């Protein structure tokens, strides 16, 4: 099980990076970055998990009941929301590149040709 979890993390990270390397399209590149980033969420949440433990919320659960690690969860939740706006910024930059050079293929955009 341990190997499977870490393999999923490495695989999601790797396909994101592979996509970014061979990307011919800036919007595709931005989505590859989100995929890569998602691997860190899986890693954080998987590391904080404990067998047989509940959520770290003690509303109707007795204090002292086994609960998963709350720190990695708080890191993940803020990051998920913030990453959406950062991706929006990257997409806006891609659209700006398209407006200026009529292409979103990184190989066709050259600052030297301006």
């Amino acid at each position, binding site marked *: *099980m341990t190997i499977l979890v870490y393999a999923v993390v490495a695989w999601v990270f790797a396909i994101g990076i592979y996509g970014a390397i061979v990307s011919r399209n800036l919007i595709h590149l931005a989505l590859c970055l989100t995929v890569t980033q998602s691997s860190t969420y899986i890693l954080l949440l998987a590391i904080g998990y404990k*067998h047989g433990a509940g959520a770290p919320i003690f509303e109707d659960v007795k204090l002292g009941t086994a609960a998963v690690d709350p720190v*990695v969860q*708080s890191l993940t939740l803020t990051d998920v929301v913030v990453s959406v706006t950062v991706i929006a*910024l990257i997409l*806006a930059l891609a659209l700006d590149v398209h407006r200026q050079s009529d292409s979103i293929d990184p190989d066709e955009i050259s600052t030297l040709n301006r």
Partner: protein
Amino acid sequence: MSSRQRLRAWIAAPVLALFAAILGWGFARAPAFGDFHGAYGDLLNRIAVPQRHTSNVVTAIVFDYRGFDTMGEEFILFASVVGVVLLLRAVREPATGQDDPVASDAIRLFGIIMVAVILVFGLWLAAFGLVTPGGGFQGGVAIAGGIVLVFLASGYRAWRTFGRERLLDPFEGLGAASYAAVGLAALIAGAPFLHNLLGLGVAGTLRSGGSMTLLNWAVAVEVAAANLVLYTEFLESYLVPHLPRR
């Protein structure tokens, strides 16, 4: 693969090999799945409820134990929204007289019901963030999702009531500013930055959390406004120009 792609792959290969080695080294020392004993998390699970009177430990971490870090996150969010606005708003002309009404009554009716349901759900998520699963970040996203559904369910003209820069920009600024203001208020009162001034309240109720409640709502407003500003900017720049003219 084109030759450029092959070239890029060859350039990336040594870096990735190094990275894979570091990753493998890290994984070899990582805890077995389901057997993690982080001292910090275990400690917080025991002391957060008696110490901070918030039954949701995750929210207590976001707005109290790591409250300063969350302020940084909030300003990353704010800065990227400002960046999107700078890139998109400057170059577009104001769109007028365009509409793309949704023709189906069934979709409109169901959509408007769902707007109400999602809005109430979002407000509930944000309001009870310190008690049950939820919080300002999640609630803000849900609230924005509910409002943007107006566009999908009923068309551009109805959406334009909410999706206006002059309406949304103040909320975006207010959300970011009030988080910092809560922190500075503590400084003025002679306590550390972001210190809880309002008392802790009763755990498990809406009156729990003190200053954390204010921070929670500041983030909810900030996140909801940020998402709506982003929807508005992309819609106005790239969808509205293609709407049929009336």
